[in-house]
């Protein structure tokens, strides 16, 4: 296999992509791999979205109408697993692949072969995960949090779910190791840490979170597996274990995980807002420190998901205060974004619209999070639709909007073509309107006591649920516009300049559009670096 050949060494520059399918199968190129990740997550976005629409169709009216409750449960479970592990995480890794080497003036990722493997695990892992839906016992139906004892009562497909999680975990850890090594080891001379774009910073910290938390998740699901198949008693009180112990281990991973889903989004938004406000990012240093503090704090707040499990009072108080503390660095970020826009010469191209939408609606999610952090209040809110509203505000108009914003922002660099601005704006407005129609009513039904993860509900919740379902279908169909815009842009369109955006700062804008197959084989000169950062 690809025996080493010294003659190759010097002709890197002339090396383009290999022809045909093997280009994608064997590629070590960070741009190819980034593209693969992005297409993969787009595909999964529609699979996960279809599941969400099944959920919303069932909830359109009270009563059981369309699917049986067991299948409904496996839809809520799988929807979450697909969206978290199959959409948001790989999409951000795809962006990291495409952008980080270009942003730090590196020729590629530090470990290109490993990079290939990180991606090529994903389709296989998700084949296993999705195949459980077609097994006799149906897919996992105990919620994405996999709480025992419920989750241990599921059928034969359980083992496959666990192994699929292990499989994805291998990919995440390898991908993160690669990103850390790239950022620490591959920066061009003069690209000091505090000159790095915030997207690079946020990814560095995200990668750390991943390496630290995914193995804990692997441990937790391994214990589930042995409890189910090998007779251990980790989560069984009869054997001296404790089902609540699973929740502790799971959320020790789970809370950092939600920040894994949002920190790169912070980085994206911190890149886009200065560009279209034509002002340097306000408070760069404080952004870096805020990100680091969020990462640190995210390891000591986990039990805010467990306020109703009967923890000792000291635990309830500790986790309440530590959780509230996270709002401080988060608030710093929001203030910095607003201050960046303050008195800027703003224009509102599609990426900026999505970024502003992010700032506003992510903040709504952050505020409902703050409400949930108050222990006595959470005892009322827990496991209601209010929680569903909270995390969907941070994840959909949060993480997903930032991914869409990033796509509009960088796609001219990827394809060399401008996207259709008019369609982009239509996409933004339909998405923004429908996402609020979809998720805002969940606050109301949640506060009124509607439980989550139940296929039926009592009559007083009917109106808002119908509205939410309408919003869901509207939001879902709005995303078809997105696919159309992307498709059109890949196929052609107005040629993009190298700089693409008037106010854009960063090394990625110094290379041609579309970015050549290999960039920065020679590192950029110091003068270029010094001119292209905040």
């Amino acid at each position, binding site marked *: *296999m*690809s*025996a*080493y050949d*010294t003659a*190759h060494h010097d002709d*890197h520059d002339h090396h383009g992509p*290999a022809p045909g399918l093997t280009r994608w199968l064997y590629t*070590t190129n960070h741009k190819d791999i980034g593209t693969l990740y992005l297409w993969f997550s787009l595909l999964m976005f529609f699979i996960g979205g279809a599941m969400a629409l099944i959920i919303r169709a069932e909830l359109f009216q009270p009563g059981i109408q369309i699917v049986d409750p067991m299948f409904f449960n496996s839809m809520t479970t799988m929807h979450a697993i697909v969206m978290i592990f199959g959409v948001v995480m790989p999409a951000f890794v795809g962006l990291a692949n495409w952008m980080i080497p270009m942003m730090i*003036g590196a020729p*590629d990722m530090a*470990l*290109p*072969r490993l990079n*290939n*493997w990180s991606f090529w695990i994903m389709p296989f892992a998700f084949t*296993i995960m999705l195949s459980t839906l077609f097994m006799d016992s149906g897919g996992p139906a105990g919620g994405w949090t996999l709480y025992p004892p419920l989750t241990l009562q599921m059928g034969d497909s359980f*083992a*496959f779910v666990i*192994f699929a999680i292990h*499989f994805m975990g291998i990919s995440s850890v390898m991908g*993160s*190791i*690669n990103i*850390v*090594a*790239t950022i620490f*080891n*591959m920066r061009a*001379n003069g690209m000091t840490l505090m000159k790095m774009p915030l997207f690079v910073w946020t990814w560095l910290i995200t990668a750390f979170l991943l390496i*630290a*938390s995914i*193995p*804990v998740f*692997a*441990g*937790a699901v*391994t*214990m589930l597996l*042995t409890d189910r198949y*090998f*007779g*251990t*008693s*980790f989560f*069984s*009180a*009869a*054997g*001296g*274990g*404790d089902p609540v*112990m699973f929740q502790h*281990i799971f959320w*020790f991973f789970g809370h950092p995980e939600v920040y894994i889903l949002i920190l790169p989004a912070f980085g994206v938004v911190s890149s886009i807002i200065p560009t279209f406000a034509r002002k340097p990012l306000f408070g760069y240093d404080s952004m870096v420190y805020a990100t680091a503090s969020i990462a640190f704090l995210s390891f000591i707040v986990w039990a805010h998901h467990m306020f109703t499990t*009967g*923890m*000792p009072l000291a635990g309830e108080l500790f986790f309440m205060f530590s959780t509230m503390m996270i709002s401080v660095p988060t608030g710093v970020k929001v203030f910095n974004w607003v201050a960046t826009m303050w008195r800027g010469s703003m224009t509102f191209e599609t990426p900026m619209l999505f970024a502003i939408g992010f700032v506003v609606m992510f903040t709504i999610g952050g505020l409902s999070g703050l409400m949930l952090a108050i222990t006595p209040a959470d005892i009322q809110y827990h496991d209601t639709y209010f929680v569903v509203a909270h995390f969907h505000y941070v994840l959909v108009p949060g993480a997903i909007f930032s991914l869409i914003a990033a796509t509009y922002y960088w796609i001219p660099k990827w394809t060399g073509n401008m996207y259709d601005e008019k369609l982009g704006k239509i996409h933004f407005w339909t998405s923004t309107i429908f996402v609020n129609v979809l998720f805002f009513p969940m606050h109301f039904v949640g506060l009124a006591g509607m439980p989550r993860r139940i296929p039926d509900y009592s009559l007083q919740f009917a109106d808002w649920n119908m509205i939410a379902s309408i919003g869901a279908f509207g939001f879902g169909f709005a995303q078809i516009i997105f696919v159309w815009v992307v498709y059109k842009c890949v196929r052609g369109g107005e040629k993009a300049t190298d700089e693409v955006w008037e106010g854009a700062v960063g090394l990625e804008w110094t290379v041609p559009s579309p970015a050549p197959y290999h960039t920065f084989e*020679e*590192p950029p000169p110091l003068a270029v670096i010094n001119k292209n950062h905040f």
Partner: protein
Amino acid sequence: MSASSGYYIPHEARWPIVGSVGLFLFFMGFGSFLNDGSLGLPLLLIGAAIIVWMMFGWFSMVVRESEAGTYNGQVDVSFRMAMMWFIFSEVMFFGAFFGALFYARQFSGPWISGDGGGGAAMTNAVLWNGFDYIWPNNGPGKIGDGFAFNQGFTEMSWFGLPLINTLLLLTSGVTCTIAHHAIKDGNHEKMVRWLAATVGLGAVFVACQAYEYYHAYHALGLKLTTGIYGSTFFMLTGFHGFHVSMGAIMLFFVMLRGMKKHFTAENHFAFEAAAWYWHFVDVVWLGLFIFVYLV
């Protein structure tokens, strides 16, 4: 962090897809094996064989490239970072199981027996009346096959085999370091000798563990299924034993490469990576010795 030009970027990678197929078959096979599917075991074995083949092929390729001088110092740094962060991820993996041990001992046990605030006393009275918590235990349901319990529930004593194991591993850390100094002097023969000693000590350790398991199962009736004590004991020591085996295999291959004089006084990252790994399993063992056997 120096100029990037000269950083080796391979043009294609064929092994990863082999690895993915191998893992896929392995996991599918394992899954159906656990559910008594007849194809399970063969699939699992085929998958495992493919993974071994992939590792062999991938590592040989890297060794060839390294021997041909493909990697500059910067590539070397990437490898080092990757190995360190990989070991960190392993630390976190063990952290989950140590966390389970602490939680079960400090919280679950006392709470089931009625100690602690909140509803603990009530829970005990209603659900597990009469359960007194002492460590080790297999819970109020006396989960396990009862054999050990009837004879008085025995804790694995730290004195004896575990102590010998500790000494074995600590000694192997020393021999490994001597081997490292040898290769730093460019002395391959000495390195190979001391590595052989290290691998040998590792093998003896694994053998002792195997004996201990045998003893636990047959003489003490302590099994994986013996409640929370059996669960934590066997999962922690089991994963550790697996990692020791992996580390020994790595050192073994480093030793073979030493026989072929692959290393130089300056350039022997493979050795160092395996040695770091070895020290890591050593440290995990100390944690096990203290928290599983001693206290």
